[in-house]
């Protein structure tokens, strides 16, 4: 998943107005832009940044859930969690591949992540403290990710849009699985229900922050909208998410930790929707800027894996060269 709020479209380009207008025409006609097609530098840079952040989020996102694999309460849950975390890694892999079609390598993107230059979704800077968090992440974090990603299936850049179709299918499954974990707890013993509620209390607000700053404070949304990379504004998606989640929480018998949450028949153009309380943006920006509970540890874990794995990657490369050289000599000898 990724946080829409981190994306800043860089509109600066060197291209002439005619060329840009022709490109915009293709976008407006809902044509897919493919890797070998012309695209403005700003469009390319925006996508590299966005797809890179998205890929990093999948990879860093393996850590908080991976934290519970060895402690999963049953073998069935363990198997499902392993499969889920593996899916996230798979999403990372094909997102990196989609970004590579734009002329950046996975290694470069990884180095940027480790150097703190590339961002990932802030939600993964929160710790997973109980088993209930595994359910809550599936239900809410993946649920919010789906809200963000469904529109990306229609993104103007072909490889990203196609990757999103598969990612969304798997994320929907994860979300149902997460909801089912929370439901089991909510219908369990008082202790289990308390565990589910405590987890919801911790995750609810950070999940709402996943959609990014309010539209009025979001600097780069317009260009991404015009390029049809982004289809809905941060606030629109957040509202959809809240409206979808409130009945789910009610069904579980859990309470969303927001005293200001109430039905408003005027909302959503008269269709009705939920008003909700003020988001603590100081917390959001603090976590984005590195002052979350787990920022350091998450990047450190990725750095450790990358650095301690360097000798393995080098060995694989050297072995492949040795093998190619031997094959070449054998072919030569045969001739």
């Amino acid at each position, binding site marked *: 998943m990724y946080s829409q709020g981190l994306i800043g479209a860089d509109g600066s380009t060197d291209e002439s107005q005619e060329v840009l207008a022709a490109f915009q025409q293709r976008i407006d006609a809902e044509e897919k832009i493919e890797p070998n097609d012309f695209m403005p530098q700003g469009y390319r840079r925006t996508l590299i940044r966005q797809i890179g952040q998205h890929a990093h989020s999948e990879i860093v996102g393996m850590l908080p859930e991976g934290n519970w694999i060895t402690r999963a309460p049953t073998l*069935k849950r363990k198997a499902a969690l392993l499969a889920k975390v593996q899916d996230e890694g798979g999403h990372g892999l094909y997102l990196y591949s989609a970004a590579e079609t734009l002329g950046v390598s996975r290694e470069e993107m990884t180095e940027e992540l480790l150097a703190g230059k590339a961002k990932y979704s802030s939600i993964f800077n929160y710790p997973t403290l109980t088993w209930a968090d595994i359910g809550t992440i599936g239900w809410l974090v993946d649920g919010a990710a789906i809200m963000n990603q469904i529109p990306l299936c229609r993104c103007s850049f072909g490889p990203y849009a196609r990757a999103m179709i598969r990612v969304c299918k798997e994320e929907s499954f994860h979300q149902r699985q997460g909801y089912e974990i929370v439901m089991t707890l909510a219908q369990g013993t008082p202790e289990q229900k308390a565990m589910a509620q405590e987890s919801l209390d911790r995750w609810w607000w950070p999940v709402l922050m996943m959609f990014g700053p309010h539209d009025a404070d979001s600097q780069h949304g317009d260009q991404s909208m015009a390029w049809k990379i982004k289809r809905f504004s941060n606030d629109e998606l957040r509202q959809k998410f809240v409206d979808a989640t409130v009945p789910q929480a009610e069904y579980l018998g859990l309470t969303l930790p927001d005293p200001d949450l109430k039905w408003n028949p005027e909302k959503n153009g008269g269709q009705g929707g939920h008003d909700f309380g003020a988001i603590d943006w100081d917390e959001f920006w603090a976590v984005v800027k590195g002052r979350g509970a787990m920022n350091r540890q998450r990047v450190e874990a990725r750095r450790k894996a990358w650095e301690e*794995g360097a000798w*393995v990657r080098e060995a694989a490369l050297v072995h492949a060269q040795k093998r190619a050289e031997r094959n070449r000599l054998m072919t030569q000898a045969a001739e």
Partner: protein
Amino acid sequence: MGDALFCYVLRLADDHLILGHRLSEWCGHAPMLEEDLALPNIALDLIGQARALYTHAGVIEGRGRDEDQLAYLRREDEYRNLLLLELENGDFARTMLRLYLFAAFMELFWERMLASKDETLAAIAAKAIKETRYHVRHSAEWVIRLGDGTPQSARRLQAALEELKPYCAELFHSDAIDREVASAGAGVDPAALRQDWEAEIAAVFRESLLEEKGIGDGHQTGGRLGRHTEAMGFLLAELQYMQRTYPGMQW
């Protein structure tokens, strides 16, 4: 026969659970993204095999214990896995070499189990053999890459072999339980697999330029009797954390 078969299947189930647990520890921490996918994938296969085996063991025992009661709610000395499999992962070389040593053994084991008179075991073998062949291929390729890679990778692989060597003989440990199950046609006597295993290992070790003398002469045994290494208690502390903290709940 029931008691012996129960112990036999339980040992096998414990092997798969414990190695699956160790491999799952790599998830998110592997040297490359492809291995972040491959290692949990293999762990998932092993846990799946463990589940089928525990369920079958529970049926044989006939006391109503399900897969989770067997997997989570025993004392350390009641786990009967090979010591080799509970050792900490160490580096990537040790992890891959251990997987290879065990998977190469299990490939031979499952091939013979296809003919088991116990229909459930034969069916488990039929599914497991396909997965195990992939585990062998994947791990053998890595053993070769590391052995015939850089001086550092070769040194690490050789060091891993020295660490693991003392534990390999236990793969072929055979006692009254194995013999009873084997002679009834329900299982395989692991002692019978030793020659084939050594031949298989030798071929891969040659390609990986590994010095493999004395691989079957190890002195570290005890897992089959419930005498474990110091690593086991910590593994179980994690594995059993939820079930021990919140006894008797549904998850």
